[in-house]
């Protein structure tokens, strides 16, 4: 966004493609305008980032929250979400027109999942909205793979040593979303109310869902 490069994902387990898939024509034209106008000094990349950042929560992050709340309250839906995630998410009408597949990884008392991927093509924006600025930073992308516990601690998430941390690297074809643990004390809460406890960061894995009564921020 506003810079001269665009990051694709970092691989650990390289699979198929030999090149990066170009975005749609409209996206390429926007990138072209950004490139030309920042290079020529009409706009500053930082100013562009600031505007996008302001709206990063406005591209469907509540979509993912609805999926999570349904999974918490409906065991059959949870099972479909884990087994056939793309179809289960499409039940809400959240469809990625680019056709990438979703995979949902479930947090448990023993396992904490965290997702890393990058700008444009490697973020599940139909459910999570626009990627936050930190998510696109090379610091996050490189460090979360090497020292996930330290990175999570910087987000204020201190995990016990006996919890296994799994880092999932998205590919152009496969996008990950974390199914956070349902907070304690939410037994009997209706699905709608649960939705407000699901934060964007809890679906990336850099946070957990809010406890009841805790204000929903990110």
């Amino acid at each position, binding site marked *: *966004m506003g810079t*001269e*490069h*665009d*990051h*694709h*994902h*970092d*691989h650990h387990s*390289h699979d*198929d*493609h*030999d*090149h*990066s*898939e*170009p*975005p*749609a*024509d*409209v*996206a*390429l*034209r*926007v*990138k*072209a*305008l*950004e*490139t*030309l*106008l920042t*290079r*020529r000094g*009409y*706009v*500053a990349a*930082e*100013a*562009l980032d*600031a*505007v*996008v*950042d*302001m*709206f990063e929560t*406005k*591209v*469907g992050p509540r979509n993912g929250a609805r999926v999570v709340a349904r999974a918490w309250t409906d065991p059959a839906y949870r099972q479909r979400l884990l087994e056939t995630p793309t179809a289960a998410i499409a039940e809400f009408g959240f469809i990625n*027109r680019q056709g990438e597949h979703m995979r949902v990884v479930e947090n448990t008392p023993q396992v904490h999942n965290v997702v890393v991927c990058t700008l*444009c093509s490697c*973020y599940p*924006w139909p459910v999570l909205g*626009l990627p936050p600025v930190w998510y696109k930073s090379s610091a996050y992308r490189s460090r979360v793979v090497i020292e996930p516990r330290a990175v999570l601690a910087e987000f204020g998430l201190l995990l016990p040593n006996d919890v296994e941390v799994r880092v999932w690297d998205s*590919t*152009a074809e496969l996008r990950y979303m974390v199914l956070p643990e349902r907070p304690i004390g939410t037994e009997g809460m209706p699905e709608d109310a649960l939705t407000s406890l699901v934060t964007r960061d809890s679906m990336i894995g850099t946070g957990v869902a809010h406890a009841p009564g805790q204000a929903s921020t990110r």
Partner: protein
Amino acid sequence: MSAPEPAEISDLIPASLKDGAAPVFAEPWQAQAFALTVTLHQAGCFTWSEWANALGAEIARAGDADLGGARYYEFWLGALEKLVVAKGLASPTDIDVTAAAWRDAYLRTPHGQPVELNAAGTPAA
């Protein structure tokens, strides 16, 4: 860093594409096109009414009132390109060539590597 408030430009977005006063985007490029418009406006590259006229003309030219529909931001991008050209900030050829260069950069970059445009912003030979 305090984010600028694009209240005026948000006013042009139909209610069906907003959540209260804030626009909701269906795809990231739409947010990027929106941000670029806001930023150019704030930098003084065009006035509020110039933008409103450009967007209105683009919607009228398309001939179908798809306001609030899936094509709204296509009109938005069309209007932005025309205004950028009219203001002499970039030529249509510049935009075509740079978009092609980005496509080319994606195609020649091994998957998993950062996609970067070369310094000239031109397609690789």
